[in-house]
């Protein structure tokens, strides 16, 4: 347990150290394409459906108090503070994290990593670092897109379909949403999730047993461990960031 943590710390350290420079930039861009651009479809679709469902639920409850205008505020707070970062990170772990683990694990199983090391190419720099950094960059961007699309989708349901007044929908939202308190702290959560999910994904691949079964186990561990860490860290972060109950 402690030994695994130590090994993963060493991998993290040397990969972060191996921040892709000028020569590594094409590798990084390729990885951002793999984990970021290709995750867009699932992120946008989930965001639309979650935004629409949230708007419906908020509307049915708030309608009883005659407070339909507050639907927008409810949407923005729930999405920016919690669902945006958490759901994006969970989807990202399932969609991109597992793929990274499987890829690196298979490279290890087919001795690509060790032959690279033999040729004097550091696999941590060449393979692991670009994937770690790509995840670290992509996840916050995906979360921003998630929140935007979900609020927009919720707005369509609330305003165009359920007939909430368009001006007060946005005005109440703007009145109650704060740039640092909601957007900033949400993004802070996201950055932490991005680091943890990318770290788990590359390390599980790098540390996988070089067999078919080992890769399958590593991929599963990436998804399970990432999800648990995201949810546990979310509680801790919420407590630290918003737990000022005085």
């Amino acid at each position, binding site marked *: 347990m402690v030994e695994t943590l130590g090994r993963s710390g060493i991998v993290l350290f040397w990969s972060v150290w191996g921040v892709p420079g000028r020569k590594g930039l094409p590798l990084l861009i390729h990885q951002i394409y793999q984990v970021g651009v290709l995750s867009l479809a699932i992120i946008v679709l989930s965001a639309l459906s979650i935004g629409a469902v949230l708007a419906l639920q908020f509307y049915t409850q708030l309608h009883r108090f005659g407070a339909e205008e507050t639907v927008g505020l409810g949407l923005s707070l729930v999405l920016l503070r919690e669902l945006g970062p958490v759901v994006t990170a969970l989807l990202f772990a399932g969609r991109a994290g597992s793929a990274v683990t499987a890829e690196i694990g298979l490279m290890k199983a087919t001795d690509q990593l060790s032959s690279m090391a033999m040729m004097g190419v550091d696999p941590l720099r060449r393979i692991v670092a670009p994937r770690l950094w790509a995840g670290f960059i992509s996840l*916050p*961007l995906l979360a921003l897109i998630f929140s935007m699309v979900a609020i927009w989708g919720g707005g369509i349901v609330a305003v165009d379909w359920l007939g909430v007044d368009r001006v007060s929908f946005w005005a109440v939202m703007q009145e109650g949403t704060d740039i640092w308190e909601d957007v900033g702290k949400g993004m802070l959560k996201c950055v932490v999730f991005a680091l943890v999910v990318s770290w788990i994904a590359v390390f599980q691949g790098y540390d996988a047993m070089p067999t078919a079964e080992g890769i399958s186990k590593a991929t599963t561990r990436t998804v399970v461990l990432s999800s648990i860490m995201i949810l546990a860290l979310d509680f801790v972060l919420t407590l630290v960031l918003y737990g000022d109950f005085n």
Partner: protein
Amino acid sequence: MRIRTLEISVGAFMLTGFLALLFLAVQVSGISLERGTGTYTVEARFNDVAGIRPRAKVNMAGVTVGRVTDIRVDSEYAEAILTLEIDSAVRLPTDTGAAIQTEGILGGRYVALLPGVDDDYLAEGDTITYTQSAMVLENLIGDFLINIGGS
């Protein structure tokens, strides 16, 4: 050619991310890109500011004209000192009063300003002395029970 489309799609992805941030900042949080006319700060001393939080609204005639920026306690007089940041377009006579009020029954607490009639105006750093403290529901209920018991 294949590399170029890849780079373009990554560029578009990152651009979309930053546009989303802009959308969340401007359309959702409602920060205005043009600078406001500026603000000045005044202090107000209260006996009790229960329920007031930093960034609480400061209203005049129901219109938000500022925010509470700081809450301190003066232990010598056992008074609370609120620092209020007021829009500089709003000029307040020196005998302006301040009261802690509640939005609706369950709403948040805010500071209501009741402008006076003086010809002089409050300037940066001045203190509002005519204040009315927060109504604490528990105290009211307590008083009510004591009155019933006494009669």
